């Protein structure tokens, strides 16, 4: 029987993949395994079994100490070859995304990255991903016998943990030392903000004239009990807010009850990140800004006038 | 130091026509276009008349991306809440070779730009030319992005507010009354809808011109042209009239009001606005032509003021194409003699003066002053439409003699010196 092989260097994402992998077992008639690679891998097996893996392949080979695409791709390739894995489910983290096509190339497989939905339709495994800069959703089925799919974190729900036992296999890999040396890792001063779980979000864009003006946005956010998000310019370019707060195609995809977009024109790269909001509100001084067609309610006005008044009104309720 | 044989500033119809005619000669030609692609900054109503230019570019027209050939011509006089139209439906216009097509510049100019590039000329978009290079008092090249590019001759094809003509000292002071501003929308409708709404079959097209209340008493008018899968709708208002109007009116708002009129609304219902553009148009005719040539420089197209309001229709595109071709002719001659001086290039002006362009500009030179008459836009259309309304209205009272109705209406409104003078002026056109 062939296998579904799951891997992600981030265990929490791997658990999501295993949880979903359980569903595919019967639909595809395959067993479910996970690869545990790198230092301390052996100790994690129990959790993988709890989420549904039948087998785990473990390797703490010296070549896997640091994550390098070349070593990890070779590791997954050898495991897949030896054990008849036909479907590889990887996490589409940055590392996952540089890894997946490489494994796929070794296997002669097609690969879909950044998948935001994976399902079995008419006996075929299909994956959705954003295309054309977020304007469309492309649904594709991999034609090759081996299939590699890199799935966005948080696409799948974590399943229940059950008390299960599975088989631990020593992967017995033959790996060359990687040619990339990690010299240093500078931790990012990230904030512990979780926009993906937030119930309400206020997003601010280029309509804000200077960093000092963030106060008026913070006041509104507080009045709404909302987290603050932003567009690319404010975090990546001007560094007024941390990248954790980026909402959009290359940032967080959110699904709050309420999202208020302030001073944001509404280009597709941003609106992709608020598609999941139940109610979307826009405040922008340009009546032709596309954000209004992507919102339920809109006010055409200057944010410096609208926000304080709106905050005051909310506080008075 | 970069030297070309010819530098053409502007990849509109005049610039591209000149490049097209010159490109065969193995010359190094640069057409510098400030827009993202040829046609991106060009606006026309619009329609093109092929007969004057068919033979200038014999191999082009079969392939050219033209829209519909016009078989219905409608002239509409608008009053406040009514309008009267006259429509010509001509089978002759429906016989090949067709004499007039509606056109979409973004498509057409771009295609022409590709054709010119295929012939070996450099058509380079996103290149804004800021100035001319002068050597010993004569034009020696252009300056773009701080780079100097030299050439034997520069062709100023940079449109109605030509910076190049100004820099070369060829343009006189620009008077507001010689210009109008136009706004236009391209509204998408399915082929079937267009054919149903405008009574057309296949690739037949309609061209409609409006004057009257839509410009709120100011000099100007409106237009509607059917394209294959869209309608070009817009209006034109004289700049001087706009400046003098109190209280100030926004052209954008006038366009919205125009679209809301009961005559227009159903024609564009359900359509999606695909393009919105605005542009300055030359209205001055003969009175606004700059000097057409200098040492190593020629002026073509709108930059040379080659645009004409003939009341029944508007001309510009054929003038641009033809003047570009004539400039090419003059340049070829100058090359043969290796003489790019003003004296040599004056041949261009000669060609223009002998051509349909100049002759028509002369013939219709009174149009501008005729159009400065506000009664043309607020009084006459209103009176005429009111009269027509009265004639068609059947009351509880027994209907009077037609002549009685007519005399009543006209006597009240039109029996005065102004009208008589206007009538005489009309004879001039």
């Amino acid at each position, binding site marked *: 029987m062939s296998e579904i092989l799951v891997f992600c260097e981030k265990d929490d994402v791997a658990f999501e993949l295993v949880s979903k992998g359980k569903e595919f077992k019967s639909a595809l008639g395959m067993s479910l395994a996970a690869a545990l690679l790198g230092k301390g891998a052996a100790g994690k097996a129990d959790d993988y079994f709890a989420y549904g893996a039948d087998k785990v392949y473990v390797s703490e080979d010296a070549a896997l100490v640091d994550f390098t695409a070349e070593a990890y791709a070779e590791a997954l390739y050898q495991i897949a070859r030896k054990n008849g894995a036909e479907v590889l489910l990887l996490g589409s983290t940055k590392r996952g995304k540089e890894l997946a096509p490489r494994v796929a190339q070794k296997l002669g497989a097609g690969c879909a990255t950044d998948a935001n939905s994976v399902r079995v339709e008419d006996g075929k495994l299909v994956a959705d991903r954003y295309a054309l*800069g977020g304007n*469309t959703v492309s649904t594709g089925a991999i034609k090759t016998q081996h299939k590699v799919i890199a799935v966005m974190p948080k696409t799948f729900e974590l399943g229940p943990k059950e008390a299960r036992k599975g088989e631990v296999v020593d992967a017995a890999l033959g790996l060359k030392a990687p040619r990339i040396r990690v010299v240093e890792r500078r931790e990012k001063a990230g904030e512990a903000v979780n926009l993906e779980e937030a119930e309400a979000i206020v997003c601010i864009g280029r309509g804000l004239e200077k960093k000092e003006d963030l106060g008026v946005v913070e006041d509104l956010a507080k009045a709404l009990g909302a987290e603050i998000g932003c567009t690319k310019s404010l975090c990546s370019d001007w560094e007024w807010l941390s990248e954790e707060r980026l909402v959009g195609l290359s940032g967080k995809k959110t699904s709050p009850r309420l999202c208020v977009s302030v001073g944001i024109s509404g280009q597709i790269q941003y609106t992709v990140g608020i598609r999941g909001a139940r109610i979307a509100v826009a405040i922008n001084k340009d009546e032709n800004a596309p954000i209004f067609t992507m919102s339920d309610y809109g006010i055409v006005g200057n944010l410096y006038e609208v926000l304080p008044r709106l905050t005051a009104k909310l506080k008075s309720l | 130091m970069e030297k070309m044989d010819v530098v053409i500033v502007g990849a509109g119809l005049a610039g591209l026509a000149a490049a097209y005619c010159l490109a065969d000669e193995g010359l190094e030609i640069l057409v510098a276009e400030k827009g993202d692609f040829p046609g991106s900054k060009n606006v026309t109503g619009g329609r093109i008349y092929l007969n004057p230019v068919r033979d200038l570019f014999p191999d082009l027209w079969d392939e050219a991306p033209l829209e519909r050939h016009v078989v219905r011509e409608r002239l509409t006089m608008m009053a406040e809440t009514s309008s009267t139209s006259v429509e010509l439906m001509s089978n002759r216009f429906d016989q090949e070779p067709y004499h007039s097509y509606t056109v979409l510049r973004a498509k057409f100019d771009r295609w022409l730009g590709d054709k010119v590039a295929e012939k070996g000329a450099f058509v380079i978009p996103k290149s804004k030319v800021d100035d001319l290079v002068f050597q010993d008092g004569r034009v020696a090249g252009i300056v773009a992005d701080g780079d100097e590019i030299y050439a034997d001759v520069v062709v100023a094809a940079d449109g109605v507010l030509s910076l190049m003509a100004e820099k070369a000292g060829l343009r006189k002071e620009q008077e507001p009354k010689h210009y109008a501003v136009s706004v236009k929308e391209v509204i998408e409708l399915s082929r079937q809808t267009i054919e149903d709404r405008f009574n057309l079959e296949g690739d037949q097209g309609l061209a409609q011109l409006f004057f009257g209340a839509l410009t709120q008493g100011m000099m100007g008018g409106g237009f509607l042209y059917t394209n294959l899968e869209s309608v070009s709708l817009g209006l034109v208002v004289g700049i001087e009239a706009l400046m003098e109007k109190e209280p100030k009116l926004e052209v954008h708002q006038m366009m919205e009001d125009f679209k809301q009129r009961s005559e227009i609304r159903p024609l564009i219902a359900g359509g999606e606005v695909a393009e919105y553009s605005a542009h300055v148009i030359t209205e001055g005719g003969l009175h606004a032509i700059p000097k057409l040539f200098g040492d190593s420089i020629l002026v073509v197209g709108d930059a040379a003021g080659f645009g004409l309001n003939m009341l029944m229709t508007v001309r510009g595109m054929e003038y641009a194409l033809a003047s570009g071709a004539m400039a090419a002719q003059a340049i070829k001659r100058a090359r043969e003699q290796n003489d790019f001086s003003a004296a040599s290039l004056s041949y261009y002006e000669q060609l223009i003066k002998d051509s349909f362009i100049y002759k028509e500009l002369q013939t219709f030179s009174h149009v501008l002053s005729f159009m400065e008459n506000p009664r043309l836009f607020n009084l006459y259309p209103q009176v005429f439409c009111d009269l027509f309304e009265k004639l068609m209205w059947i009351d509880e009272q027994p209907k009077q003699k037609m002549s009685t109705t007519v005399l009543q209406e006209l006597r009240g409104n039109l029996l005065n010196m102004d009208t008589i003078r206007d009538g005489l002026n009309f004879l001039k056109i």
Partner: protein
Amino acid sequence: MNIIVCMKQIPDLQQIRIKERKPVLEGAPLIFGDMDKNALEEAVRIKEKVGEGKITALALGPAKLKDGIKEALAIGADEAVLLLDPAFAGSDSVATANALAKAIQKVGEYDLILCGEGSTDNYPGQVGPRLAEMLDPPQITYVRELEIADGKIKAVRNMEESFEVVEADLPALVTVANEINEPRLASLRQILQAARKPVQTWTPADLGLAEDEVGGKGVAIEVLSNLAPEEARKQVVLTGELDEMIDKLVDSLTKEGVLGR
């Protein structure tokens, strides 16, 4: 210092339209993706710093690419290799990577292969890693800063939780992130000079590839649909004086049940 820059043209996303949920690409001009421009810019900067070298722009695409590649030559590539044959049409990441790998082998020795992190249209990010797998240089992705010295490359990679600094010996394959540099614009003069730089065009046969290994025939994913998602927003724009609009907004949100801590 021989650098090969892999580039791809995509439809300008600002100019595509959605009609009845289907993407309409005609009328959208073809441009190089943002990160491809970053890759080319980085190549030019490296060559300027090192003082010598040759930059080859390598691209697979439709016939119009012959015109489009002038931009790359104007910005600083010394030569271009184009894969324009209609047989290459319909290539996906797999078919493209296969063709580019063969082309790179034919170009010969290289010190550095530079690619964008992903193409701005669909952002699959696959070609870089696939090329690295086939040609076997060390693979360094998501690079926001790099330094070449003594036959080695040192790069800062933008990872989720950290900036990772890595080192490897040349030759190497690098994919660059958008923030690595600000691509320059070519001047009119550079564009005119670009016309004189050599451009080679290679067919599948030149690369030793059979017709059924390239283009649409070499594709690994069957696209079942590519549509814009349903947009079901109410699109209500509130009117009135500022305070009126704010009252209306708060009322609406209360009714919708989204106000409440």
